[in-house]
């Protein structure tokens, strides 16, 4: 009886150890399988993400190259729009100023005097001819005579024939080789040219 009990105990032990070993083997395999699948899934999503990013980058480049001319056109239009806006505002203001100056006799005479001073200091000649615009001969003669009184006899100044312009004068050397354009049209163009960069800088700074 005692021996049979001992044998039975050995059998039970052999079974228990074998079952434990089998369980261990299966559990290990399941764990390894789970890891393998997990790694594969991670690798797969990395692969998909990397490739998609690469493909997306290609799409992006393609679309950007499609859009580049439109972007450039927008920029060109924007710059032109800015320039046109500022230039037309300056045009308006300068026309307003010229028209006000022309409409006010005192201001206009002052303009003509300043123009004569500038012409005399710019054109190096002993004799100058002042050409008034049509319909302004009388006024210009008065201003020239006033000017002569203020500066003396040199250089010699004469009023020449009327020319077609909308205000101001053209002063030329008697030999016609050098001339000084002080018409209001020329002055307006000069003012616009001077004001444009100045105003641009001011408004762009303000608009920011």
């Amino acid at each position: 009886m005692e021996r049979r009990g001992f044998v039975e105990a050995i059998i039970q032990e052999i079974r228990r150890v074998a079952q434990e070993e089998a369980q261990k083997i299966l559990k290990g395999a399941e764990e390894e399988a789970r890891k393998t699948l997990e790694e594969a899934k991670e690798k797969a999503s990395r692969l998909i993400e990397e490739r998609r990013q690469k493909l997306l980058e290609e799409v992006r480049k393609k679309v950007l190259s499609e859009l580049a001319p439109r972007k450039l056109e927008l920029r060109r239009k924007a710059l032109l729009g800015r320039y046109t806006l500022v230039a037309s505002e300056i045009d308006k203001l300068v026309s307003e100023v010229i028209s006000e100056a022309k409409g006010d006799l005192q201001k206009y005479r002052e303009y003509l005097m300043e123009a004569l001073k500038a012409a005399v200091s710019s054109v190096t000649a002993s004799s100058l001819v002042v050409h008034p615009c049509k319909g302004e001969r009388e006024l210009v003669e008065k201003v020239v005579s006033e000017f002569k009184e203020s500066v003396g006899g040199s250089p010699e100044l004469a009023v020449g024939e009327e020319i077609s312009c909308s205000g101001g004068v053209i002063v030329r050397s008697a030999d016609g080789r050098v001339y000084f354009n002080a018409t209001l049209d020329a002055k307006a163009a000069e003012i616009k040219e001077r004001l444009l960069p100045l105003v641009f800088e001011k408004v762009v700074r303000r608009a920011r």
Partner: protein
Amino acid sequence: MGEKRVSRSLIGEELDVKVILEERRKADLLISEARRKAEEILEDARRRAREILEQAEKEASMLPEELVEEERRKLYEELSLVERAYDEELQNLKTALAQIREEVKKLAYKELYRW
């Protein structure tokens, strides 16, 4: 009588050894069966991993149309933003011009008499 007892005891021990050896054989069988199953599990996992990667290769080789469209939409939207920014800039410029109108007019007068 004594001889009989001895022989019975020897036969009994021989039987016990056989029973234990049989149990040992069954245990080995159980373990090798477990190993076979474990190998099957691992092989199955490797096969599924290969399938997952093959599928990923297929999926990664082409970009879903909606992603392409989304990217295109985003870039076009950026262009509209640039356009709007330019429009806004022009409006700001108009406002700024209106604010400095008198100042510019004074400058124009100054320039009129400056040679």
